[in-house]
């Protein structure tokens, strides 16, 4: 259980996971794992393939339920993810990015507003102020000249930017990114990680799964190694 005094310290935690245990088919993947991510930090999770990194992110996102343990995001239990607008505050960017093919960059970003305006979303009639906000976000990520292009025609790095833009449009305070730079060349990888570091400096907490230790040391505030179901802090 998370101690009440920790919660009363003005909730400086973006993510707090205590004694997290998860497994399936009679094998344990996460074994009493603990993780604390402060608000405004950029954190890397590293480890071998199959060690449970993606599973950890999916539990924090509320997609999977742990066998035991507790996860709180921005002070709210992940079990109450649909309360207090918490769902909107967590953006999950899977390895495949979760973008909608055959749809333009702008429409993909606008999807972040769809839950608030479902009728407009169904008809594709967005409010001008929301379109302008999306365009501003895309401009800040260097994608303003590609708003009308369908996402399946973009490069890997450009698609990552669109996924990040959608997370920002969502108003996410926590971004969970599963291997955002694994398939990118070094220049693009650095560019994406710079964006994430910049988001963290503005108060958004970012948790990134990655394998490149060299880049992690350069861009990440903290890093953990997931081994045998437990997180070991590297720095």
């Amino acid at each position, binding site marked *: 259980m998370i101690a009440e005094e920790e919660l009363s310290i003005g909730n400086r935690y973006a993510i707090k996971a205590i004694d997290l245990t998860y497994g399936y088919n009679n094998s344990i993947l996460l074994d009493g794992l603990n993780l604390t991510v402060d608000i405004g930090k950029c954190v890397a999770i590293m480890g071998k393939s199959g060690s449970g990194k993606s599973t950890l992110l*999916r539990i924090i996102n509320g997609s999977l339920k742990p066998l035991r343990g507790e996860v709180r995001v921005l002070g709210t239990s992940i079990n109450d993810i649909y309360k207090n607008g918490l769902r909107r505050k967590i953006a999950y960017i899977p390895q495949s990015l979760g973008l*909608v093919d055959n749809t333009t960059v702008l429409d993909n970003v606008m999807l972040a507003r769809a839950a608030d305006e479902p009728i407009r979303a169904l008809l594709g009639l967005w409010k001008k102020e929301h379109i302008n906000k999306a365009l501003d976000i895309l401009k800040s990520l260097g994608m303003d000249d590609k708003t009308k292009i369908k996402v399946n025609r973009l490069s890997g790095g450009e698609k990552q930017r669109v996924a990040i833009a959608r997370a920002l449009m969502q108003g996410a305070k926590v971004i969970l990114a599963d291997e955002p730079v694994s398939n990118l060349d070094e220049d693009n990888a650095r560019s994406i990680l710079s964006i994430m570091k910049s988001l963290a400096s503005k108060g958004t907490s970012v948790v990134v799964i990655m394998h490149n230790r060299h880049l992690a040391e350069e861009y990440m505030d903290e890093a953990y190694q997931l081994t045998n179901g437990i997180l070991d802090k590297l720095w």
Partner: protein
Amino acid sequence: MLIALALILSYLLGILDLYAWTKALSNLSKFASDLYIRQELVQDALYAVGETMLIAAFGTIVGALVSYPIASLSAQGITSRWVSMVVRSIANILRTVPAIFWGILFVVMFGPGNTAGAVALTLYTVGYLSKFFYETFENVGKEHYEAMHSLGLPWPLLAKAIFKHTEKQMISHTMFMFEYNLRTASILGIVGAGGVGYYITQYVNILNYSAAFTFFIVVMLFVFLVDGISYIIRRHI
């Protein structure tokens, strides 16, 4: 082992009867003399094929429109397990009934003609297309759905997003179904449900094989043409 099984089945079905084959070839050579194209019937045949294409097009388009919401309610990931189980069962029932039985039912309800064929083909299409569609939806990775869920999308918007994501496969399935429906619509006429099959059956019943053959050739050419166009379109989407 398959060869042995094939031989046993052939024996049981009387297919290995050499005498029967000899008689069959003799009958074919007599029948072949009636197989020629009658130019004066080509226009009628084209009209009948036009009706068949209308029936196939209606069944495919309306069937696709109905299949889409059914498929989105059948796909786990878009909807809950229980809802998907119930809706899938309904689609399975539609698919289990052969097209010809739907044809008979709607001929009884509406009388012989194109309406019976069009409605029968629609239901038949829904049974198949909804399955193709929901299997396509379910092939979209689980993590993709999780990313969509993290946006808080309600069911209709989630279904729309997944449809857009799989648009090319959906178009491909629909075009395949149209090719298939063109053939099925031709056959539905046998039970009076309109289209070219109706005319072919009438001519066969009065032993006018040359007329039936003319209609059959025109249908076949159209089916080849549609198959070819559909293949080219599907390669490019």
